[in-house]
């Protein structure tokens, strides 16, 4: 359960960036996963150099945000006016490019990144129940970021400007909103969120080329379930997906083994568990074709 929450919140960090860029800037950015990867690699590198986990994370977040802004500034900016399909193709091309560049710089072997010393052990959260301290930290970070983002987008004027600019760029400018730097900044925030996710998932998963793609699909599932452009939707969607996925993997095989042989259970179990989140999405979309919290577009 807690694992589901933890996984969900990490997904949220990714999904939030994606939903911002997608829902607000109306830009399908498949390279989002690549920023996540860059974040993880930078974290691994900076932690290696400085030897201090938190400092490494901080540097990586800043670095990724800068890289993200650079990308926006140099390439993506030209794609806002284009249709979604061109954006898909262009950002897919970016995935390929970034993957190879990362491979050239860091090699194709996974990098190692360990949880900081103080958090690498278990702590007792309830009498008799141990839980990894690092994962608990992740939950905390995820929640804080979620709150912050929600407030930023929904309750600040900057958030309103962003949404206005997304729906009608020209009119927003005519109302005095400096769209270009604002979008660059927003893209940087999205990239920073990716980096946070990468930094904290790095020690749990592996830092490797291609780590972005599989999780990108999940992030898309999350924002679609939640409703594109809605931070609240991304949070709820991420938690749902995280919990359903983890619970499915933990309990479905057990459940199945009650009714079927372990062989069958072990064959069907993981497949069913993987199907579960897609089923969840299909069901949600069947009843709410705009996602749970139809975004404001």
């Amino acid at each position, binding site marked *: 359960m807690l694992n589901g929450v933890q996984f969900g919140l990490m997904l949220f960090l990714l999904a939030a960036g994606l939903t911002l860029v997608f829902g607000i800037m109306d830009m399908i950015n498949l390279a989002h996963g690549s920023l996540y990867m860059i974040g993880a690699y930078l974290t691994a590198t900076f932690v290696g150099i400085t030897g201090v986990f938190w400092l490494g994370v901080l540097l990586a977040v800043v670095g990724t945000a800068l890289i993200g802004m650079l990308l926006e500034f140099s390439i993506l900016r030209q794609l806002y006016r284009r249709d979604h399909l061109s954006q898909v193709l262009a950002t897919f091309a970016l995935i390929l490019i970034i993957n190879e560049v990362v491979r050239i710089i860091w090699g194709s072997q996974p990098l190692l990144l360990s949880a900081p010393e103080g958090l690498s052990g278990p702590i007792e959260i309830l009498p008799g129940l141990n839980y990894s301290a690092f994962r608990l930290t992740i939950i905390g970070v995820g929640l804080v970021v979620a709150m912050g983002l929600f407030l930023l987008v929904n309750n600040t004027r900057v958030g309103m400007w962003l949404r206005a600019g997304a729906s009608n760029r020209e009119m927003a400018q005519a109302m005095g909103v400096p769209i270009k730097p604002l979008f660059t900044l927003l893209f940087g925030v999205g990239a920073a969120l990716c980096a946070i996710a990468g930094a904290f998932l790095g020690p749990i998963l592996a830092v490797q080329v291609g780590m972005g793609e599989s999780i990108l699909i999940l992030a898309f599932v999350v924002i679609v379930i939640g409703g594109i452009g809605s931070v609240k939707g991304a949070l709820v969607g991420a938690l749902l997906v995280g919990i359903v996925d983890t619970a499915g993997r933990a309990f479905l095989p057990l459940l199945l083994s009650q009714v079927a042989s372990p062989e069958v259970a072990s064959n069907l179990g993981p497949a069913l568990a993987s199907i579960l989140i897609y089923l969840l999405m299909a069901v949600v979309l069947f009843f709410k074709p705009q*996602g749970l919290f139809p975004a404001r577009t």
Partner: protein
Amino acid sequence: MPRNWPIPLVLLGLLLVFPPIASATGLEFYTGLVTKIMIFALAASSLNLILGYGGMVSFGHAAYFGVGAYAAAILAREGVSSAWVIWPVAMVLSGLLAFLIGAICLRTRGVYFIMITLAFAQMIYFLVVSFKQYGGEDGLRARRPDFGLFELSDTTLYYLTLAVLTAVLYALYRLVNSRFGRVLQAIRENESRAATIGYPVYQFQLAAFVIAGVLAGLAGVLMAHYTQYASPNLLAWQQSGHLMMMVILGGVGQFWGGVLGAATLLIVEEILQDLTIYWQLGVGLILLLIVLFAPMGIAGLFGRRAR
């Protein structure tokens, strides 16, 4: 045929004489490559029908492709060796699947449509993976079937694929210029208006979706014959993405978009793979340049206006 009909005909002629020349010069390998390109051209063209002409961005097209391949493999495994059974069954199955999935997915629009088609494709993917008796994650060997008339060697498969591709392209050409095709495109252009002048939008879209599914299934069967193997990768989302890339690269809603995209992408990949292990970097750069400087895909470079 379109204005520039001589080019496809010349190409067809070249393709007809390619295998003997290739084997004379010791390049049989490329006969296989061209077969593969034609198979993907078929699959991409089927996707182009719904994505380009119908405006339905299906991110699950590999499902029909894969189901076609698996149908062929499983039938072969179960002892059905006649292509005259395998082909129709595979096509009907993928069509049926397209019907069921389309019927549900067409309730949604835009990105939600993209994602729900992906969801169904993923479900099918995981289902296939869970069928251990048919290879599960490791895929399933698919012996080539019996055509009765001729033996299916690499060369005959090449000609068979060429024939199928030519026939399908001709049929598609008729289709997009027929009443049906025109309505399909009008729906893409303005769905709500199409409905208000009296077109049952849903039925048109579903029909196109099923046709595309059947054709993708056919491509899948050919793929199974080609590699003699059905792998779950054929149904993976990456495969759907690959098909989409081909269509976008070639030209969305351009008649030759699917063919051009498949050929370009596969050939570029092939060449770059030979040159460097970082070949994806090259592919990425080329794709990026094309998007930035050829907004209507490669077909768009030939000057025919997209609708």
